[in-house]
């Protein structure tokens, strides 16, 4: 098979496994939708004065951030640890499948799920809470999604290396992302968060990723909405994650 066909082959099985896994579907698909319904229903029609937008409009890119990070970083890290500790990663290493085809299939899966979540959350936001659907900023939105998928997938691979066992995977990944959601303004509007905290959160990739989405969804954004500064920070994290992943990747279970 050609390279593209191999990636597509792997992608198909990644999709099957994803949609059959109750945990993956719940945390990546259901959880963000439920959060959107709760946040937007409670505070949706209030206006965030400093930003000049309704709270629901703020939460749509926030929940998309949550869903994409879940489909990429969280899902990739959990599954890689499970694959490694079950011995399947080692076994895959013994087949002629090139590593890039395997990783490509996995990232393809993360991207398709992320894209689906962008569509679902955007439509729900529009239909239920009247959040405007971006038009002129669609290219910026897609670029943000592509850069984010790359960055958070490589960070997921890097994180999986640091996780010692299958049992440790959920607590470690959640402990990594949950505080950042709060500090980055994903769950709590950024106007309620002290500047120092936001500055601190801006060092990590979730805050700038969210800001790039927020720019694309903000009706007040003039022009194409490419948020180059924040995208650069996200991409830099992606490069760092890739370097760690390439240098330190482990195929065999830790106990073996």
């Amino acid at each position, binding site marked *: 098979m050609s390279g593209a066909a191999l990636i597509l082959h792997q992608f198909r099985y990644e999709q099957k*496994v994803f949609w059959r896994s109750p945990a993956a579907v719940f945390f990546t698909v259901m959880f963000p939708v439920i959060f959107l319904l709760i946040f937007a229903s409670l505070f949706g029609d209030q206006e965030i004065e400093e930003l000049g937008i309704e709270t629901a409009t703020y939460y749509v890119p926030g929940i998309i951030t949550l869903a994409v990070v879940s489909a990429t970083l969280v899902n990739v890290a959990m599954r890689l640890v499970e694959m490694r500790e*079950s*011995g*399947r990663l080692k076994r895959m290493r*013994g*087949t*002629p499948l*090139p590593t890039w085809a395997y990783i490509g299939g996995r990232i393809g899966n993360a991207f398709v799920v992320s894209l689906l979540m962008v569509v679902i959350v955007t439509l729900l936001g529009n239909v239920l809470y009247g959040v405007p659907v971006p038009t002129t900023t669609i290219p910026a939105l897609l670029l943000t999604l592509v850069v984010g998928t790359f960055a958070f997938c490589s960070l997921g691979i890097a994180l999986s290396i640091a996780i010692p066992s299958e049992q440790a995977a959920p607590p470690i990944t959640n402990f990594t992302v949950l505080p950042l959601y709060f500090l980055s303004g994903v769950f709590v509007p950024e106007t309620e968060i002290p500047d120092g905290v936001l500055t601190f959160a801006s060092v990590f990739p979730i805050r700038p990723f969210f800001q790039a989405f927020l720019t694309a969804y903000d009706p007040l954004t003039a022009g194409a909405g490419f948020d180059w500064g924040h995208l650069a920070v996200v991409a830099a994290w992606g490069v760092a994650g890739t370097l760690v992943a390439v240098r330190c990747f482990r195929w*065999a279970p830790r106990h073996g």
Partner: protein
Amino acid sequence: MISVKGLRKSYGALEALRGIDLEVRRGEIFAFLGPNGAGKTTAISVLEGYLERDGGTVEVLGEDPATAGREWRGRVGFVLQECRMESLLTVRETLTMYAGYYRDPRPVEATIDLVGLAEKADERAGRLSGGQQRRLDVAVALVGDAELLFLDEPTTGFDPSARRAAWAVIEGLRDLGKTVMLTTHYMDEAQALADRVAVITAGEIIAAGTPDDLGGRRHADSLISFDLPAAAAVSAVRGAVTGEWTQSNGRLALRSADPTRSLHELTAWALDHDVRLGGLEVTRPSLEDVYLDLIGEERGRAT
């Protein structure tokens, strides 16, 4: 197929392999025997290319596994000691997925039949029994149609009927012209399957040969044994037939280098004196006896 000379591997201060030599020929089933921790899996891991060696030369299918590429990996199949298959994919999906990695795979349906999982083809792997999961594992190793297969303890944890079924699969590989290297601690498995065996303990090969020859087994003394007759007959028979007699568990046994003659003398005496020799048996030491002797000697020397 496999040629190993002076293979060494240490984990820190522990010398797992202390210079082993091996030759495995095309089309043969080669069994690696040894107690837990003897170095079987370490040696196999080096041959599979998973583990770097510290010394010696290793050639598998004409290449050094440490540097061999994709092409080579397509010619080698594995069953690892521990591997759980993806529980959410069915048997057929799992094999179709792995088949897609190879340029010239074995047909998926035929592979499912070969390991006896036809009735479970649409069952998710997570719902299979332990033995069935292991057979799926073997099927994954076969679906690439590799020339050389490494099977690390392929039947550990199987019930007796599942083991017989797995043996039939491995026998089938011989008929397909495959070369198989397996590790096991079941002596009956090695006896039933292997053309040649090597015994490893503490990182060294202490004996090698066919299962029938191992440790001089072919030339070993036979043991003639029968149920203990009446007390008077015991001393009479021991007087009439000379040799090394032993008595235990209600059985009387005669060790003999020439069982034809000893048996003739014994049965002649029994007929003359109208003594029934209940449960009469002539046995040679089993592979297990020889193996236990071998590793026992080795342990005796070590302590």
